[in-house]
């Protein structure tokens, strides 16, 4: 799994490439917690190239959502592949996360 960062005028975009699972979720956790501590509380997670997410990965996303919501920031996701969307659905995440079809649509909410 590889993370790519891109700072825009209104938010920080984190793109996840590859599989987000128990072997690497701590990399995402560290990155998100660093950003939150730096008061970077407008974050978009681009999942276009994320092939798989395990429960461990979902846990980090839920923790980030809770922290950013508490800080009155904005946390959104975009471009979920079909298999990822299914995992989000099973986990009851589609109703609690702000999920957009593509990056262009997502950037409009920041």
């Amino acid at each position, binding site marked *: 799994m590889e993370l790519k960062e891109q700072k825009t005028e209104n938010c920080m975009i984190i793109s996840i490439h590859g*599989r987000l699972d128990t072997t690497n979720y701590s990399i995402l956790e560290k990155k998100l917690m660093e950003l939150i501590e730096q008061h970077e509380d407008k974050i978009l997670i681009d999942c276009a190239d994320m092939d798989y997410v395990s*429960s*461990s990965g979902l846990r980090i996303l839920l923790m980030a959502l809770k922290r950013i919501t508490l800080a009155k920031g904005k946390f959104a996701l975009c471009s979920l592949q079909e298999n990822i969307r299914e995992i989000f659905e099973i986990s009851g995440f589609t109703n609690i996360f702000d999920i957009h079809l593509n990056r262009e649509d997502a950037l409009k909410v920041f």
Partner: protein
Amino acid sequence: MAQYIHFKDPNSEEMIRLLERIPRSPGTCFFMDINRSTDMKYQGGLKDWGRKLNNTFNNLLFANHFQHNVVKGIGDEVMLFIPDEELRKKKSNNTYFALLEDIYASLFLIGHHPDPDLFLNCKVAIHYCTEVYHITFFEGANDYYGSDIDLTARLMTKCIENRIVLSEGFYIKAKNDLISLGLPLETGCMERVSDRFIENFKGVPESTSFRVIDIL
């Protein structure tokens, strides 16, 4: 598929010869139980408890690709068995630590979901089994038998809602994974593992060591 054991003659020598040849099938056994689901059946209809059982089992099993490892369900409790040879073939969740971490994450996701009406909290017992055989006494059924399967069931008696009970044997396996991966021993949920408890379980000749992780 499990080896079917079925002989009409109770003194069959052929049966003895077959049983002597059956190899052990080492692996990880899980018992997972959904809390309060019995109460719910008296309080609401199928559309309520059926929906929550569906959601919870999906979240526990399907999100982690364990659905093919369900051996049996008894009421709201399920038994899973993941043989070592199968674990090693998995693309992810292919270490004991990964199994533990993902089960912990699943229980965490259920316990922390903002909508309390979707899922039910769970409890899980995990044991690394060596004394286990892939056999069945019922045609067409898949099953595992052995003293270590029985011990996993005994560990369930130490479980409460939002708790994972893990045998010392499984804990050591998960710890060794972290050492092999070059990761700190406090990685992920291992940081939350309790000190060791020792208990004498009914029918088990030796004391059993286990630890717990409470989902906070």
